[in-house]
């Protein structure tokens, strides 16, 4: 009379699932409680390179075990969740733009205290480091991370497209840059359209963050982002020369149409365009190198950014990530050994050889291994001299708020609906307000 219930078989299956679920897992308590945790963000290739460093470290320090914790899309959220929950990782990857907020709150260990006890390493580090990169992580007198890789921006260019258009190859050294005008000319010559107006080849694409790239052009017009570098009191959005650089960048897409509409950063399409040979120049950093190397039929090289009329020579940006130690770590000695290794000469040499990063120690950058990993690059000087020819990005705990303001204000400017001079009144004022009440 009544329908059959859900079915004994289904229920048993469910119970079986529950039971079986308990079997294949190793002990329910987190094994490896005594391992050093290392938190970083990386795609599989980069994670691989890091694993090699960890293995090498394990060989030299068999008593120290390292456990990796990979980050998702938002490292800050993960990190703060772990730390707020009392499980801060011991070794943390630090980013130049966001570490200051953590340093100010005492989350990161001041490495100067440890360096004081390890004079030998301190001396080596001082001799071999590139000052501008090292100083990036100096904040309020303390040293909160050691730089691990240089991720400054430069230009990739397609050699074949240049040759087809009969253009001379672009400059090979930061000391002898090309001008904004020359750059624009080149981009114009390399932009091709169909009769219908649709573009089949772009002269220039940006694979970085449009707002930051615009700022980089402003920097190359002779004006830094802010003054002073650390804990800035003033951003130069009200400086005419800086604005001129920003306007030049915006005009590339909006007025001269040599670049596609500036949409969101890390958009797959701009990188793809260059890799597929549909863009002649691409602005980006070393992190794009592997993708372009793997692209079939892409014959590329690198060149420097153009310098503006008010600029003195060309610059890249001091983009860098580093390794820091959590102040609350209970394994500080072990963490120190690991950080020393990874940012020291051996670890940096390994990084250089992997071809995935540009190392931050002089010895590693100019090593044969680094050269071998970049055999396809003719203008190696762009990479090896890059860190020494870089301008700084702001280092401030208030970066997130300022970044949000920048992102919002740059939108209409990059689309061409508002001139860059509008930043002088809007953005400059908003930033001043944020800086005055932290």
């Amino acid at each position, binding site marked *: 009379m009544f329908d059959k219930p859900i079915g004994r078989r289904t229920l048993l299956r469910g119970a079986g699932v529950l039971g079986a679920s308990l079997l294949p897992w190793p002990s329910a308590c987190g094994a490896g409680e005594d391992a050093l945790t290392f938190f970083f963000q990386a795609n599989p290739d980069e994670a691989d390179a890091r694993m090699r460093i960890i293995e090498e470290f394990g060989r030299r320090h068999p008593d120290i075990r390292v456990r990796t914790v990979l980050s998702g899309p938002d490292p800050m959220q993960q990190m703060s969740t772990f*730390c*707020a929950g009392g499980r801060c990782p011991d070794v943390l990857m630090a980013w130049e733009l966001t570490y200051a907020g953590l340093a100010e709150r005492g989350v990161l260990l001041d490495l100067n205290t440890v360096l004081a006890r390890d004079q030998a390493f301190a001396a080596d580090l001082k001799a071999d480091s590139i000052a501008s990169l090292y100083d990036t992580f100096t904040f309020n007198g303390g040293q909160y991370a050691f730089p691990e890789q240089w991720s400054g921006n430069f230009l990739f260019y397609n050699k074949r497209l240049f040759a087809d258009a009969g253009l001379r190859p672009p400059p090979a050294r930061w000391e002898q840059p090309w001008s904004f005008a020359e750059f624009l000319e080149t981009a114009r010559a390399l932009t091709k359209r169909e009769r219908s107006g649709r573009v089949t080849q772009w002269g220039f694409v940006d694979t970085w963050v449009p707002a930051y790239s615009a700022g980089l052009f402003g920097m190359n017009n002779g004006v830094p982002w802010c003054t002073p570098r650390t804990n800035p009191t003033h951003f130069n959005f009200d400086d005419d020369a800086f604005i001129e650089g920003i306007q030049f960048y915006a005009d590339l897409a909006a007025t001269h149409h040599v670049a*596609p509409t500036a*949409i*969101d950063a890390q*958009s797959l399409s701009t990188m793809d365009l260059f890799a597929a040979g549909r863009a002649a120049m691409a602005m980006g950093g070393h992190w794009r190198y592997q993708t372009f190397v793997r692209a079939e039929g892409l014959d590329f090289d690198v060149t420097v950014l153009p310098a503006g009329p008010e600029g003195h020579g060309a610059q890249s940006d001091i983009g860098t990530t580093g390794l820091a130690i959590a102040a609350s770590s209970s394994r500080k000695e072990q963490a120190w050994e690991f950080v020393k290794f990874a940012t020291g000469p051996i670890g940096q040499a390994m990084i250089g050889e992997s071809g995935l990063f540009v190392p931050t120690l002089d010895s590693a950058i100019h090593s044969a291994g680094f050269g071998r990993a970049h055999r396809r690059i003719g203008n190696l000087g762009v990479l090896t001299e890059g860190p020494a020819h870089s301008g700084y990005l702001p280092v401030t705990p208030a970066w997130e708020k300022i970044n*949000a303001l920048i992102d*919002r204000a740059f*939108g209409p400017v990059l689309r061409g609906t508002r001139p860059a001079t509008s930043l002088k009144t809007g953005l400059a004022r908003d930033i001043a307000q944020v800086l005055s009440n932290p």
Partner: protein
Amino acid sequence: MTRTRRRAWAGRVFVAPNLAALAVFMLFPLGFSLYMSFQRWDLFTPAKFVGLANFRTLFTADPLFLIALRNTVVFTVGTIVPTVLISLVVAALLNRKLMGIGFFRAVIFVPLAVSSVVMAVVWQFVFNVDDGLLNTMLGWIGLGPVPWLVEPGWAMVSLCMVSVWRSVPFATVVLLAAMQGVPETLYEAAKIDGASEWRRFVSITVPLIRGALSFVVIISIINAFQAFDLVYVLTGGNGGPETGTYVLGIMLFQHAFAFLDFGYASALAWVMFAILLVLTVLQLRFARRVSLEN
């Protein structure tokens, strides 16, 4: 025990496991976040009590709150209305014994099963201004390219489109299940009485799936109001371009994990909760009144 008392006792026992899970896993987090809304906490240093300061700032000194509220309302309405309408139609379409209907029923399930990571990449390509699928298709019928994710207004439209695409399968699956519970005999009787298909749909189907319909509406409103995942992967964590997609969920995340102002974020979360609670109570009352009238 009398029958009613036995049923009441059974009721409590049946609810007990769920209640226990709620008490253990939700009570502490809810209490914690409520407590934090009266503090200033940056997640790393000890929290400091600030009383109602967070709420005061939120309501009087933060112009972005009103913007976020307005955007969230627009997004919610722009998601719910199309979702409910479309899913009613689609569920009605799928509620037939056509050949191969099983295939279509499986297909409608796909958007629900897609992870947000993939969705973001795919839709960014669809919305690409120069080369994207949508602008290409618009080009075939002679319309100019639309700046989908580039302009603030259009960005909100794009967001609603993806949100509807994401929500329709969920609503359809629920409504279809409800429709399949409507007895055939009712339709047959109505057909004999000469009622048209549309008439049958409006007078029989819709009233009888009222419960599922109100469920879909309420849950969709709750989800759309708190929407964060979708917006974050599609237009970034800043609600860009400008403040075009700056919804409450984004504002919440930004304050909690970017600005490290967890107290302020908690205050915002509870304001959102209050708004949703009022909305839901009103809807439940309305639903009950409608069912009583029937």
